[in-house]
């Protein structure tokens, strides 16, 4: 279960990203609405949703939405999730959002993230408005019945609360050291 609850403010951090920059959540270049997604390279669930994450960033960037993807996996046990491999993945997929490396795993622990992918959406006041899954079908985008993240964003960009605030994240467990 996440350590932060709906209406809680975001927990800030400073992490290195695959684009060579360092990111914190109060960086002025980020949109006012922030979508943190704990993810990784190797997990097939994370991979299955990657293109959808790119499309969501594309769709909502005009609304001031910034996706920030974070990998917290133990790269000693999972070399596919090393920072170098993350950079390769970023280039290969042409991520249109920063991909951050939580090497110490402190950020995942602070948020209480357990799965990849697992989403945390903060509104323009920095308060948690949605946490959980991206949608309800990892395998087939055309068969999605509930687009949890996009439905939440549709409400949040209008200043409303998400109609569904919490869902279960579906994916691999974060690989702890």
């Amino acid at each position, binding site marked *: 279960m996440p350590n932060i609850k709906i209406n809680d403010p975001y927990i800030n951090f400073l992490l290195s990203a695959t684009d060579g920059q360092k990111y914190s959540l109060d960086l002025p270049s980020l949109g006012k609405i922030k979508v943190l997604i704990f993810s990784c390279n190797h997990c097939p*669930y994370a991979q299955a949703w990657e293109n959808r994450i790119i499309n969501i960033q594309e769709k909502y960037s005009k609304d001031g939405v910034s996706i920030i993807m974070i990998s917290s996996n133990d790269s000693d046990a999972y070399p596919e999730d090393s920072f170098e491999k993350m950079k390769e993945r970023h280039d290969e997929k042409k991520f249109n959002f920063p991909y951050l490396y939580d090497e110490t795993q402190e950020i995942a622990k602070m948020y209480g993230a357990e799965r990849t992918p697992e989403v945390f959406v903060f509104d323009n006041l920095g308060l948690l408005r949605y946490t959980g899954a991206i949608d309800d079908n990892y395998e087939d985008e055309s068969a999605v019945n509930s687009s949890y993240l996009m439905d939440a964003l549709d409400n949040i960009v209008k200043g409303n609360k998400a109609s569904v605030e919490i869902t279960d994240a579906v994916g691999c467990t974060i690989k702890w050291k």
Partner: protein
Amino acid sequence: MVINLLILHNNSCPSLEPTVQRINEIIEENNLKANLSTKLLKNDQEAKNWEFSGSPTIYINNIQFEPIDSNLYRLENCRTFINDEGGISPVPSKNKLEKVLIKA
């Protein structure tokens, strides 16, 4: 002839249930006779002994379905499969499984 199916899994990936469901659908739709069992692996040594590529690793008549060319046997791993469209999926393609099971 009865097909022996064994699904190895861990507690880290949510892929077991949809895989079992998919296999049961194939068995039912094709009137196949099969013994389906599952085994929860508990440590890296078991993963190595079973050549566990990740959850789910499926053995059909003692032959691994779509084996991965790797000697990394990690208990916590989730298996990656290629779906019918060439994309990544954490569960095996029903079409590919069906073809193998019908021939088994």
